[in-house]
């Protein structure tokens, strides 16, 4: 994907949910520009609206105020320009891995081209040997890799990741973070990662956005300019982590005070 496509602009975004007649603000005054090819992480405690923001970028969430653009064009619904990986792999259990990956390519009619693209995507995530396996036969990490292949098979401009590693065990998670790091560099695709794992955000992202909880507001913006692959034990990494953690604790304290 060429580096000049995949730019996202979010302008004056406000979103609220109606709950039992009350209006619950979820996102407030979000203004954010994401550069083509940038890896952005959205972090925040649960309920801060980070997943809602991602669903707006995906085109699933409607009824908000403000505007969201991809390369200058308003986002009005889902599109093959934007690939998504959810926390659950959401592979269809009755389709093989290759068929699942091909699900993202259904508009492509040329069967040979389709096979080639699916093969390419599977190779990208190292699953080429499992194209005929069924999702039920895969480990959690492998299933999530297949879901990543499905999201990338269309060569989207933007890759949206909704806590994609959240359900994996700790070791698999570390390995997948390394793989994702390499993969996204190689594909040069604009990536937005939603996570509650600060370390994951710091390891992967060029920029980390911290959202405050209820309503979700941009509270902190942190550019991570450490060289890749990043060393989680380096002093710089640890001090950034400390900084972000402090934001979280502040948030918790505020909530506590309000409650008291």
């Amino acid at each position, binding site marked *: 994907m060429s580096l000049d496509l995949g730019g996202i602009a979010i302008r004056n975004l406000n979103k609220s949910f109606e709950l039992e007649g009350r209006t619950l603000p979820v996102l407030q005054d979000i203004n954010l520009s994401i550069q083509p090819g940038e890896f952005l992480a959205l972090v925040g405690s649960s309920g801060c609206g980070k997943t809602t923001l991602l669903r707006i970028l995906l085109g699933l969430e409607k009824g908000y105020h403000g505007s969201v653009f991809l390369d200058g064009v308003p986002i009005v619904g*889902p*599109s093959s320009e934007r690939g*998504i990986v959810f926390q*659950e792999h*959401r592979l269809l*259990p009755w389709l093989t891995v290759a068929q699942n990956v091909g699900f993202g390519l*259904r508009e492509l009619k040329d069967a040979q081209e389709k096979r080639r693209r699916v093969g390419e995507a599977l190779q990208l995530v190292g699953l080429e040997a499992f194209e005929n396996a069924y999702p039920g036969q895969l480990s959690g990490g492998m299933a999530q890799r297949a879901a990543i292949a499905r999201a990338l098979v269309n060569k989207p401009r933007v890759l949206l990741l909704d806590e994609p590693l959240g359900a994996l065990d700790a070791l698999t998670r570390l390995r997948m973070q390394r793989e994702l790091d390499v993969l996204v560099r190689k594909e040069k695709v604009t990536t937005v990662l939603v996570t509650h794992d600060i370390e994951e955000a710091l390891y992967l992202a060029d920029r980390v956005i911290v959202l405050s909880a209820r309503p979700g507001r941009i509270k902190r913006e942190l550019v991570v300019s450490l060289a890749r692959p990043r060393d989680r034990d380096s002093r710089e990494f640890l001090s950034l982590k400390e900084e972000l953690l402090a934001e979280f604790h502040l948030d918790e304290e505020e909530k506590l005070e309000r409650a008291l």
Partner: protein
Amino acid sequence: MPKTSAAPAWWRRRGWWLPAALLALWTLSGVFEWVRPLFLPSPLKVAQTTWARWQDGYLGPDLSTTLGRVAFGFVVGSFLGLLAGIGLGVSRVGERYFSATFNAARQVPIPGWVPLLILWFGVGEGSRLAFITIGVFFPVALNTASGLVGVSRQYKELGVVYQLSAWERLWRILLPAALPSLKAAALQGLTMAWVSLVAAELLTSMSAGLANQINLGREAFKMDLVYSGVILIAVFGALSQWGLLKAWDLTLGRFERR
């Protein structure tokens, strides 16, 4: 899938023990006349009667009539039930407009339909077929609808994300995901086909059919005829279910992976 058990044949066939024991007990009771033969004819007598009816050319038509009715009611009722179930289970509009009517109609016990059906379709075969079709229709529609409603939101969202048309969503996501419920729908439909068949043959006037044979036996107090009919219905009912499951596994089994 390799056969998992190296267990001996007699153990693997343990499902046959109970029927075999019942048959043995029944035979013994015939030999020792524990019950008056008038009420409980021996298995041999029942077998002889069945065979004689076959040879006299009564059983063949009875059998084909009954099986034809079951097949018709099952196929037509399942098809209509599937359509109605899809209408109720997929679209909120369908659910809003029709679920009240549907739920009221299905509360009517099937025999309650008889007078109406006779009015609409006459006293002949038409009423009987309509009767069985209705019996199949409701459980199939109900199971289909609840299966489709129960498809997880996560799968449904996939259809939105990949911008599938309504038809593609149904065909590529909803129906395969609801397949276990559809199987339950088919099995219940088949059971209801047999239940309604017997009711239809007993409630409407004389015609061929296995249940009709039971009726004849009752009226003439020929218990061998009654037992023969009951056993034939049990055997063919079990066979039809076995066949349905086999056919299902061969065609749709691969979609049932979870």
